[in-house]
């Protein structure tokens, strides 16, 4: 009689992720199901709205990374009107976006992903959170983390009008520019952000890389998958968050495809399973082969790690150094160990900070030429940016008034749904064996498997990002609970 383990967010009623682990007669893992229990239907109710509202409406897909949706939507809207915004508008948008990246990556590393390393996977539950981190590494760091978030949001507010859900991007550019005073302020904050990023990398070095147990954990097979990797790159194949072409490399690190946003539908398709609301994107050319990795499976990943794997380097000097150190330390490209994503994320943090200052010091950034009035007949457009949690694609079709008739969204976290499912499956299989007693720490290890992806079901469906508190209920064959274990991040 099959035994069954339900790993279920305590807060499952909010509709977060939910994991079903089925054991076979022997007590080994037979199968796992990672379910996403919500759907909001943006694709439907955005129909009928004027396209210029999409940057505002799709903001509300996710309050953690509204900037990503704001940008993807704005770029798609530009495309719909066949207009190329003035350079100043692009500078400002990317500047806002870089500052946002600093905030977002900081939040994940210190509040969500970090605790596992800083405090250790099996540290007491109650401590394994941001406050725990602060206690361990000292209060002034807590201050720094808050500072980093503050600065990032300040820039978002200066350029985007608001801290959460910015409102200034419109077809053809922005509704406002910035003054020289504001530019100076932004530049100063940017410089501080660079220091903070470097500090964070050092922290990772000392606490994580300095600890053999962690390194082994990172390099261990539990957290390794050979998949395709996706990321946005500039004309020199360097990572870029705001603009460029989408590049996909195969598990051997060779370029598989490189496409313009408008061609995304030729390369990406989404698979539907009846037991979850979330779809599983895959590479069309290869096709959906089920939850398996390797070169013959269309499953790909889009995370900080993938972006590094998919690029030939970083466009800023300091980040480039870290990029090289990253691969030399982990034994060359591509890196398949999922936990390395945390490190990759910090390298991106540094890049974002450097880019921030770079853009803030561009002479054209304060120009008054921040909007060009669209004149062409609106038709159809695709906008792609790199959300922190993966390549974000917005695709709109409109009528001649620029009113939406079709919407398609392939959202950051969604890209990683299949790989996450596999990671969970693999982690579960390797941890839960016949006769083993399922422990709380063990479950956190399972959880770490997908926490590395920084999954944001805010984006995917709209529950809350990163937070995947788990509960394990072991049922006997009659389905009566034998044992309940809980654990939280």
């Amino acid at each position: 009689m099959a035994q069954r383990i339900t790993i279920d967010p305590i807060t499952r009623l909010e509709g977060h992720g939910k994991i079903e682990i089925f054991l076979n007669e022997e007590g080994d893992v037979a199968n796992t199901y990672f379910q996403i229990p919500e759907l909001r239907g943006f694709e439907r109710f955005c129909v009928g709205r004027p396209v210029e509202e999409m940057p505002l409406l799709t903001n509300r897909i996710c309050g953690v990374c509204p900037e990503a949706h704001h940008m993807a939507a704005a770029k798609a809207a530009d495309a719909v009107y066949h207009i190329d915004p003035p350079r100043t508008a692009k500078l400002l948008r990317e500047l806002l976006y870089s500052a946002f990246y600093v905030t977002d990556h900081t939040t994940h590393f210190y509040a969500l992903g970090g605790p596992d390393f800083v405090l250790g996977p099996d540290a007491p539950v109650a401590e394994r959170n941001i406050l725990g981190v602060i206690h361990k590494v000292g209060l002034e760091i807590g201050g720094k983390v808050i500072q980093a978030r503050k600065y990032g949001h300040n820039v978002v507010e200066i350029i985007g009008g608001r801290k959460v859900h910015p409102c200034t991007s419109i077809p053809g550019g922005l509704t406002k520019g910035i003054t020289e005073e504001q530019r100076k302020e932004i530049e100063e904050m940017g410089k501080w952000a660079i220091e903070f990023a470097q500090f964070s990398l050092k922290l990772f070095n000392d606490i994580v890389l300095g600890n053999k147990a962690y390194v082994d954990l990172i390099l261990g097979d539990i957290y390794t998958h050979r998949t395709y990797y996706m990321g946005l790159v500039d004309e020199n194949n360097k990572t870029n968050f705001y603009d460029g072409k989408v590049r996909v490399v195969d598990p051997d690190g060779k370029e598989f495809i490189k496409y313009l946003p408008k061609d995304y539908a030729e390369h990406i398709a989404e698979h539907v399973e009846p037991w979850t609301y979330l779809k599983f994107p895959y590479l069309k050319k290869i096709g959906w082969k089920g939850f398996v990795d390797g070169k013959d499976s269309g499953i790909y990943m889009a995370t900080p790690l993938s972006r590094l794997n998919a690029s030939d380097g970083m466009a800023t000097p300091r980040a480039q150094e870290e990029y090289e150190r990253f691969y030399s330390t982990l034994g060359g490209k591509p890196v398949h160990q999922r936990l390395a994503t945390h490190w990759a994320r910090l390298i991106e943090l540094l890049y974002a900070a450097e880019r921030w200052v770079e853009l803030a010091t561009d002479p054209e950034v304060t120009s008054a030429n921040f909007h060009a009035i669209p004149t062409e007949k609106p038709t159809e457009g695709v906008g792609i940016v790199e959300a922190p949690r993966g390549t974000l694609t917005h695709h709109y079709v409109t009528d001649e008034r620029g009113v939406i008739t079709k919407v398609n969204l392939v959202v950051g976290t969604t890209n990683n749904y299949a790989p996450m499912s596999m990671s969970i499956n693999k982690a579960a299989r390797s941890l839960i064996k016949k006769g083993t007693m399922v422990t709380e720490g063990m479950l956190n290890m399972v959880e770490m498997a997908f926490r590395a992806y920084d999954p944001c079901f805010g984006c995917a469906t709209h529950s809350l990002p990163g937070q995947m508190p788990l509960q394990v209920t072991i049922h006997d064959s009659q389905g009566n609970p034998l044992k309940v274990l809980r654990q939280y991040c």
Partner: protein
Amino acid sequence: MTPNAKPKFAMYWAASCGGCEIAVLNIHEKILEVDANFDIVFWPVAMDAKYKDVEAMEDGSILLTLFNGGIRNDENEHIAKLLRRKSKILVAFGSCANEGCIPGLANLSDSRELVYTAYNTITTDNPHQIYPMTSYDVPEGEIHIPTILPVLKTLNQVVDVDYYMPGCPPESKQIAAVIDLVISVLEGKAELPPKGSVIGAGNSTVCDECKRIRNIKSIKSFERIWGIAPDSSLCLLEQGIPCNGPATRSGCDARCPAAGAQCIGCYGPAEDVEDYGARLISSFASVIDSNDPEEIDKILDGLVDPTGQFYRFNLAGSLLKAGVPAWKKEKA
């Protein structure tokens, strides 16, 4: 309550984007005051979330619950009712809980269309027309996902609400102000506002805080925000840009108009207003500069999406698209 026992605080999200949580985190240092004055028993975003523990609590044992997010599925509804039971003061926090917010626009279409559309996009490979099912038999057994409700409901359409805090998201300074208020209430230095009040917002509308110059209004044509180079100091509505500021509750410092973007209405209706959109319909139409039916229609063609324009955030809270028919609303 006895001074040594800290009052219990909870914050919960239902169908929301997480922006409310971010807004709360953006009060930065103030968070620590919350920590100092409250026993935070339930706040998934920052703390361990013990749902079972919540169930175990006595009814009314949580002093203050900030509830954000709309009611999109049966699970949202279930926990809304649970938290209502457990909480002395339940605050509808943020636009979603207040009036449905953007996800409430879903009420414009039959919910079956939402599902149909989501699984038939151009990138969706769905030849066999597979749709998620609330309970499904996998080879190893049956697994479940929550049931989507036919309409998105606001919090006060499923439970009794004590206070309303609007905004998408509520401005951090307003959140801070409310926290100060509650703390001073705890210290006996202030009174709670009457039940049903809107807190953390002004009692006028956005124009009250907007710095733009205003004249007597007369609209000859409606413009698209991208279609003109608006005067940066003049009222946007007077320039033909459909700005919802006149009807939208104040409290946000008129951020969007200040940034050259029209107010889209995230703070919802003003005090005592029954239907937000109706206020805009009435006021915009009143100042249209024509008495000729044809010309009026020509001018109105400039508003490409009146329904979306007027009910962008408020649809699920509106008279005609509320989650429940007017006469079924529970009467206090």
